[in-house]
């Protein structure tokens, strides 16, 4: 766009947040949905944000885009896009960024498409709004985009209403709408959660292909580590409004540090496991964001937690590789972790024998 960003090298973050906080005023008190998150995404790279429900991952993506409710929100920290601070912009000032620079694909295409507007019109709207095209030009472009996102018979689909399309088709339309004005940054908020398992892979494939073709950056929000594994360059694991572990995808899967990430990994069903084997789960519930536990927020559910974890919050530390950070006092592989693991295994063996 401007000269500074054109000069900016590939290694410089395309979009970054520093200590981003988004708190909501609720009748119970202040809910710390996002509590000091620092992330960077480079141009053409994709970051997967993983966490359970209520970990703040959706609020994070909406905070970065500035799509938050008008009332009852407290925001702090900075969001920089192409070196420019956009965290303090009003919705009015963000309008030029939305659609043209950043776009979002939502979780449920049924509620995110207008039920009484033809899908073609929903795509051409933004083209006409931002690029000032006339109806004929916009329709032509929309048809091309529909073909890009592999919607069969694009010219016929343009004239259909959302309820005439299947779930996967609707999500393709949603992606087409997001892509229409050629944004450089895409936010995908659980884009496959509402879809059939067989369609999920197709949609993820389509998304990663589109961002690759268009050299876009992507922030993919999901609760499924298995989903991000194949489609993102980096992963940030969120828990209780904070990033607790962050690493390039391959590094994370090879060298997990945070017991929470490990637990998430163990809860993915695998084909190599014998059939009918019990799926590992994480006991307890995500933390209360109004009254978060002191110390490490995962401590109350963590099998490896000690007194230190319950009293003092672990700082973000760097692992062996510099781009791998985590927040844990006794990470996977530490002596304390191994000691506890032996205990747990022994206990498991005795109870197993007792049965």
């Amino acid at each position, binding site marked *: 766009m401007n000269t500074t960003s054109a000069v900016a090298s590939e290694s410089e973050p395309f979009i970054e947040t520093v200590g981003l906080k988004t708190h909501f005023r609720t009748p119970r008190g202040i809910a710390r949905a996002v509590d000091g998150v620092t992330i960077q995404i480079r141009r053409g790279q994709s970051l997967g944000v993983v966490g359970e429900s209520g970990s703040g991952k959706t609020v994070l993506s909406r905070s970065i885009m500035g799509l938050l409710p*008008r009332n009852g929100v407290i925001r702090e920290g900075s969001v920089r896009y192409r070196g420019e601070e956009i965290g303090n912009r009003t919705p009015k000032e963000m309008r030029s960024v939305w659609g043209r620079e950043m776009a979002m694909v939502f979780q449920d295409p*049924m509620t995110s498409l207008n039920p*009484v507007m033809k899908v073609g019109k929903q795509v051409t709207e933004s083209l006409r709004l931002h690029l000032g095209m006339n109806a004929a030009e916009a329709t032509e472009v929309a048809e091309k985009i529909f073909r890009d996102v592999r919607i069969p018979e694009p010219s016929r689909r343009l004239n259909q209403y959302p*309820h005439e399309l299947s779930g996967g088709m609707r999500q393709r339309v949603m992606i087409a709408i997001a892509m229409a004005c050629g944004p450089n940054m895409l936010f995908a908020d659980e884009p496959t959660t509402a879809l059939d398992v067989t369609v999920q892979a197709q949609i993820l494939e389509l998304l990663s292909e589109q961002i690759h073709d268009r050299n876009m950056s992507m922030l993919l929000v999901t609760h499924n580590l298995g989903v991000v594994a194949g489609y993102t360059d980096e992963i940030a694991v969120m828990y209780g409004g904070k990033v607790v572990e962050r690493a390039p995808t391959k590094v994370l899967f090879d060298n997990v540090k945070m017991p929470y990430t490990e637990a998430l990994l163990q809860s993915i069903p695998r084909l190599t496991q014998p059939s009918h084997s019990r799926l590992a789960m994480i006991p307890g519930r995500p933390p209360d964001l109004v009254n978060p536990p002191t110390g490490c927020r995962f401590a109350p559910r963590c099998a490896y937690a000690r007194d230190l974890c319950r009293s003092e919050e672990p700082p973000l530390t760097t692992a062996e590789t510099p781009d791998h950070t985590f927040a844990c006092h006794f990470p996977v592989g530490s002596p304390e972790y191994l000691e506890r693991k032996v205990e747990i295994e022994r206990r498991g063996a005795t109870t197993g024998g007792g049965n």
Partner: protein
Amino acid sequence: MSAVNSSAGAETAVARKKLGFGFWLCIGWLAAMVFIALFTPLLPLKSPTANFLDSSQGRPPYSPSWKHWFGTDKDARDVFARTLYGARISLTVGFSAITAGFLVGGTIGVMSGYFRGWIDRVSSFVFVVLLSFPSLVLAILLTSLIERSLLTVSLVLGLLSIAPVGRLARAATLQYSEREFVLAARQIGAKDRHIIVKEILPNVAIPMSSLALLGMAVAVVAEGGLAFLGLSVEKGITWGGLIQLGSDASKTLEKAPWISFFPILMLFLTVLSLNFAGDRLRTFFDVKEMTL
């Protein structure tokens, strides 16, 4: 067995999606009424004000006959012609009242549902105040104070419809503003005005369309009530006025029931059609929402 069941299920689903014969019958009746109201002076009718005194029949009112289909009133005026002329004012008042109510109430309702904040607080308070008056009493009060022309009577009834229309518009807007497609429109950079007009209004219009018909029915009835009390449009023929004329003096209703009966019938059928059509429209769109 199951095949039979599923085909029957499909049939009922299709049947439910249709508006049905009754709906189109009502629309037909309403269309006829609108046609009559628009073109009364052009129709081959007897003059509504002329005196058809016929010395061979003695003193009016005359009962319905080939010459006077609906009979005549005490002044020997043709009830048929007068009833059709009455459609004019009754429908005009009903239509303009509900239009005024929709313009004002709908706009305020959509605004307060979309923007919330102080607009919402002020308008909600005004709606509550308006709704706390018994509406017919307020209508009587206002119409007895003003000069009663077609415009003022419509405006008074329109004023009364602002609060109910506004509340529904606000509720529907609230519901749709929370939907993700509004957020989706915002995130492609749409302005508030664009979102309201293009994204929210078409959705809100669905529940509102049935309210428009039901509201018009209420306005027509209210106009009839005012006319019956002599508080509707001063110069001109209205159904309420005709009904009143047939029931004022002692025993008129007993001796010449046709004077009131035919205007009542027209009013009844028109209001019934409006209500029925509005109701059908609502269920029709509800079903459509569910199949989405």
